[in-house]
């Protein structure tokens, strides 16, 4: 009975895995991959790895839904209405895949595998729980921190500049000299946002974009050259990344006629 279930699930896993790269519709490919994963989860259940099997099924169900969503968002031909064959280096790929399969199979068949099967009646779930929160807790927690870093990285990679500026807002280094441009690599500015704020009353809750920041630094630099009696402490505030204090400085409104703050300040 177990053997029959195992061979059925194995055939299902391999067949649906092969269908992933052969169907025309990317959505169908996604669901075929999900079927393959669920079959592998079923095999894990047969091997009395309940936690792994069930977790695989749940995780893959969610993951493949996300994947299907991305297919529809980004890829052409999600419905498979016409033939799709987006492949390159096809022969090489078939050869590599087949060579991997044959090589691994030969390695498995020629190796004298150890045989220490799971003792009957062992409570594997309890063992896993004790292991996760006991001996291997560091590994488990490291995986958790890795997932957290992944979340942060995914958000950083996929977000554009939002209400509080670009993703590198606040990571812009201070100038090399007071009032100078930020040190390090020059930030590319898209332009077009203009300067917000300019009045001290509004400066606390203004939306400030990255390119506005760079413009401000240039502006302050120009009027620093014009007015040499500007105190050095104020210069430091301009140069730093504490942008709010720079915009709330009343002198930046009075000087520099081309100041973008002046023109936008009345809108608020």
């Amino acid at each position, binding site marked *: 009975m177990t*053997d029959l279930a*195992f*061979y059925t699930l194995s055939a299902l*896993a391999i067949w649906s*895995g092969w269908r*992933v*790269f052969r169907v025309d519709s*990317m959505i169908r490919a996604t669901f075929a*991959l999900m079927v*393959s*994963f669920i079959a*592998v989860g079923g*095999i894990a259940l047969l*091997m009395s*790895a309940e*936690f*792994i099997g069930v*977790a*695989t099924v749940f*995780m893959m169900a969610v993951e493949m839904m*996300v*994947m299907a969503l*991305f297919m529809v968002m*980004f890829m052409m031909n999600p419905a498979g209405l016409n033939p799709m064959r987006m*492949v*390159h*280096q096809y022969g*090489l*790929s078939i050869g*590599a*895949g087949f*060579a*991997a*399969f044959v090589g*691994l*199979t030969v390695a*498995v*068949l020629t190796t004298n*595998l150890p045989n*220490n*099967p*799971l*003792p009957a009646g062992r409570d*594997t779930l309890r*063992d*896993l729980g*004790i*292991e*996760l929160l006991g001996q*291997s807790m560091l590994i*488990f927690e490291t*995986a958790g921190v*890795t*997932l957290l870093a*992944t*979340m942060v*990285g995914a958000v950083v*990679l*996929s977000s*554009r500049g939002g209400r509080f500026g670009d993703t590198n807002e606040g990571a812009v280094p201070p100038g090399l000299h007071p009032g100078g441009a930020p040190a390090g690599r020059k930030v590319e500015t898209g332009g077009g946002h203009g300067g917000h704020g300019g009045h001290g009353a509004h400066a606390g809750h203004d939306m400030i974009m990255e390119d506005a920041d760079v413009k401000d630094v240039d502006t302050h630099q120009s009027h620093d050259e014009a007015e040499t009696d500007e105190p050095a402490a104020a210069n430091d505030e301009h140069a730093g990344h504490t942008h709010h204090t720079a915009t709330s400085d009343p002198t930046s409104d009075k000087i520099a006629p081309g100041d973008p703050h002046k023109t936008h300040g009345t809108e608020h």
Partner: protein
Amino acid sequence: MTLTAILIVSAALFGIGLFGALSQKSFVMLMMGLEMMLNGTLLAAVGFWAYTLEGAPSGQLLAILIMAVMAVELAIGFALVVAVYRKRQADVIEALGTLKQ
């Protein structure tokens, strides 16, 4: 159901995944190939745990780590797809000739 049979099935899944990862043009299909390779690896890990370790729980821990790798790969992969698409309107591998434009 023997360890040999399980490992052969996982080798087949790994081979299919390698074929897919090498042959597909679209980023998302390439990631599906990677997932398929990890699928085979997961099956092999669980098989080794069940048949060679006398049920030592650290084998299951390896399988959990493989699942964590899957999640990381998917999340970072999709974030990269979004970033590349936004920057260069590219959704196939051939559109990326250089790392820096």
